[in-house]
């Protein structure tokens, strides 16, 4: 079933309310939209009626009433532009609503037993549960916390929409007000520090120490959040930081690889989420030949 068919099916199911409202002297209209930014034709007609009245009101303010039926009123005049503006406003609202829905689907579906105070949910686990919930698959087995994509570190994942005609509108949706967003944030650097006990990694036997925490912190990409919209479009984050330390004649190299791929696909009525995370940490020293000097 295509999305248009689904829109039509929903419209058919809702149209029975028209008779009920007609009995009380009220007209009934549907405003059906899809997550693919498709708008039902009946809703488009309503938007056209609103645009027509807006244009009439505008010309009534700036010109005489007899001049309204001028050429500027018709295509490509202001009425079409107003209609397009209204339609785009609805489209942006749909996109924002879809992003909000996707964000909350990923960050609010963790088991309630884990959502206690002092027990933050790793982002990777949130993404896993969100993906499993979205694709109607069984939840994966709990895995140890792994460095996530830092999808929720720093800034809200969904930027507030900027509808020009929503000035002062109440009910702005704040996607981070429930705290679940911040609860799931575990940066890769924090995970590395926790896994390694927060201590420095000692490599070699002569007191040469190299901090893996500092190594991860030195990567500038750690501060860059991945927004939900970027997750929708799909994004591959790859970072590699190699640090070489030469102290007392001993070369020590520490490499950290963090590769993450987040992909989201919307196919008709379903949403598939795919998350792939990979982490590699290597600490080693060069051959002893370097000690000869």
């Amino acid at each position, binding site marked *: 079933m295509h999305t248009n068919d689904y829109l039509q099916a929903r419209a058919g199911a809702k149209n029975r309310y028209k008779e009920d409202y007609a009995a009380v002297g009220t007209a009934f209209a549907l405003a059906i939209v899809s997550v693919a930014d498709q708008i039902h034709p009946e809703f488009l007609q309503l*938007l056209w009626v609103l645009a027509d009245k807006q244009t009439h009101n505008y010309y009534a303010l700036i010109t005489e009433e007899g001049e309204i039926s001028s050429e500027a009123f018709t295509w490509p005049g202001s009425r079409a532009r107003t209609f397009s503006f209204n339609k785009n406003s609805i489209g942006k609202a749909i996109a924002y609503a879809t992003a909000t829905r996707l964000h909350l689907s990923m960050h609010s579906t963790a088991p309630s037993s884990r959502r206690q105070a002092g027990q933050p949910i790793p982002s990777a686990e949130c993404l896993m549960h969100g993906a499993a919930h979205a694709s109607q698959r069984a939840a994966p087995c709990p895995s140890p916390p792994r460095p996530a994509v830092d999808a929720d570190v720093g800034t809200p994942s969904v930027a507030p929409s900027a509808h020009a005609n929503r000035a002062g509108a109440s009910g702005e949706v704040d996607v981070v007000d429930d705290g679940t967003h911040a609860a799931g944030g575990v940066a890769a650097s924090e995970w590395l520090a926790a896994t390694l006990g927060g201590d420095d990694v000692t490599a070699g036997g002569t007191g040469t120490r190299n901090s893996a925490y500092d190594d991860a912190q030195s990567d500038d990409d750690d501060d860059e959040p991945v927004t939900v919209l970027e997750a929708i479009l799909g994004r591959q984050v790859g970072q590699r930081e190699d640090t070489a330390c030469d102290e007392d004649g001993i070369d020590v190299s520490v490499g950290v690889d963090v590769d993450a791929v987040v992909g989201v696909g919307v196919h008709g009525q379903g949403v598939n989420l795919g998350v792939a995370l990979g982490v590699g940490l290597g600490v080693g020293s060069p051959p002893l030949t370097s000690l000869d000097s």
Partner: protein
Amino acid sequence: MGATRGHNHVMDVLVQLARNTGYSVRVNHKVSTTAAASNKQGDVKLVNFGLDGFNNLVIDNFNLLRSCW
């Protein structure tokens, strides 16, 4: 929760469009009472919309966010 928020956001934009048009709008975020025999009440009510035979226009906002996930 996300579907309701998304629904309310689209509805808020629609309400603002109607208000900018000049209509008096009543918003029903929470469906609690009924205006129709089928126990269904719309989301947005445009008072004195101007249709022949009808005083008001009730708009029921439905987005597929609620059915996709």
